[in-house]
């Protein structure tokens, strides 16, 4: 049976550490497939101006292509170069919710993320994306320091 790992990247060093850890795990497992995901933090309940709304589709496409070329594609290539099977994608939404949804879609066995760098006020109120993920995911979550 093939094991499936999901790696959540954030474009920062913590994401790189998560990727390195996932690569190590996959190599140890042997028969393993990886899904690399970058989530653009986005809420359908935020407020926009008219102009932002009119340009939203264009911006979304730009956000996806930037994240793909800068973060996801290099990560997938790195894994492929190491002889591992990997696919990647970019999604908009709440980080924890989106990672859980991707996990369910691909029948993921484990989610690996870096410890998030967000802090301050919003973290105190809403908790960080990582802690939300740990609390609500139905599969094991590895948080890489």
């Amino acid at each position: 049976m093939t094991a499936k790992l999901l790696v959540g990247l954030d474009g920062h060093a913590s994401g790189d550490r998560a990727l390195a850890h996932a690569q190590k795990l996959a190599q140890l497992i042997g028969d393993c497939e990886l899904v690399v995901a970058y989530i653009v933090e986005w809420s359908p309940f935020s407020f926009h101006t008219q102009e932002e709304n009119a340009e939203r589709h264009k911006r979304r496409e730009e956000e996806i292509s930037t994240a793909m070329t800068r973060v996801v594609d290099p990560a997938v290539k790195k894994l492929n170069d190491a002889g591992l099977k990997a696919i990647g994608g970019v999604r908009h939404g709440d980080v924890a919710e989106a990672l859980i949804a991707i996990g369910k879609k691909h029948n993921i066995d484990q989610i690996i993320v870096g410890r998030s760098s967000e802090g301050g006020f919003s973290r105190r109120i809403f908790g960080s994306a990582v802690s939300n993920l740990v609390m609500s995911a139905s599969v094991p979550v590895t948080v890489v320091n």
Partner: protein
Amino acid sequence: MKTIQSALLSLLAVIGFANTAYAQEAMTLDQKVNEIFANVTGPFVGLIFAPFPGTDFPWIVLWLVTAATVFTLYFAFVQVRFFGHAIALVKGDYSDPQDAGEVSHFQALATALSGTVGLGNIAGVAVAVGIGGPGATFWMIVAGLMGMASKFTECTLGVKYRNEYEDGTVSGGPMYYLSKGFKELGLPGGKILAVVFSVFCILGALGGGNMFQANQAHAQIAGIVGDYPGWITGVIFAAVVFAVIVGGIKSIARVTEKVVPFMGILYVGAAIIILIVNYDKIGWAFGQVIEGAFTGLGVAGGFVGALIQGFKRAAFSNEAGVGSAAIAHSAVRTKEPITEGCVSLLEPFIDTVVVCTMTALVITISGQLITDPDTGQFILNEAGTAVKTIGDTSGVELTSAAFGSSISWFPYVLAVAVVLFAFSTMISWSYYGLKSWTYMFGEGKKKELVFKIIFCIFVIIGAAANLGPVIDFSDAAIFSMAVVNVFGLYFLMKLVKKELHSYSSRLSTGEIQKFKD
């Protein structure tokens, strides 16, 4: 960059001119602006508000009432049948998670609301209740409920016939559905209607979407810090609007977009608190509303006066049938235009049925409208044009006084809210006006800049002129949009019916399903 520099210079020149003029004739600048403005716009206002021969009833009011009634009946009370579905759509129950990151139904509704909820709900209602008495509220609610069907029709068409450009941006609104829809039906004149609508939309953007806002924002600030010339407020407002729409300083707009909903909630919250504190008077207030709706309770023009005011101010506040919302709602990304039509029908409900009614009840309960203790009838002012109020207030000052009589510090909060509402409405309308402008003259930085500068100049004129001529012109300009838009909607409504039929049958067969439970 050069264009921005020259635009800045032009604006400074206008400000400089105003300054010199003020220095020369310190006492009369505002009055002069007012006089010239009233003379120039008088004939246009007269035409739009012309009464039926032999009556006092303006034809435009009947035009709007008829439209709302026709759409309500034609779509078999869509506002009742799809109300629950509209809420499910806004909650995102039917949104495909794959489309996350696109404009959501909630965002389209919130943006459209930030353009409509504002002074119409605070100042406009006070004008309606001041002239038409509490009975005007009843007709305002009726107009709001019926207007939901007009909004549904125009916003469905707005999404269906919008333009999507290669770069991924979208433009929509009556000018697009009038021209494309008429062509699809093989009818002539769509293009002409689109251009006429665009002209009126630009006037509406300069009037109700700009001058009225600047005027009432000035009245509110002057009421707190003491009287000073209106053009000063105008210049400051114009500079900030200029910074946003020409300078592209999005941070100001973004802050406003976030603060305005908060202010809206605060406003409704304060109104609810006042109503709770005065719970014993709520029954009496509703009694006044119902009784006044059919008898007028002695207000100028009797029950017809109440009806005219109610319908006029409701239309001005929720803009149903005017066509502006179709521009705002067309940005949403959906495969089903009907869904946006459904969402948009919540707009007149929130704006008029909820927020306007709150304002009207607070004014009625506050006792600011003076009644004869013996007869219970309202006492009219010296001119006999409106109900006499404590301190002879009208418009936003009346609302302020009404809230202030229960919560003494609330006028200060209201002043901030009015300024922010005015600002966000201006930004929204500058966009509507700009879309009409570019429809007529084509896209392009220079062409856009010309409109934006004109827009800023009108901010100054609006703040300097008196409420009377400004409100007349604002109403006339906005209603003239409705003349063209509603005329076109009568021809296009069968296209909406086809869409609605297809959508509701797929909804009932389960072809369209929820993504969330």
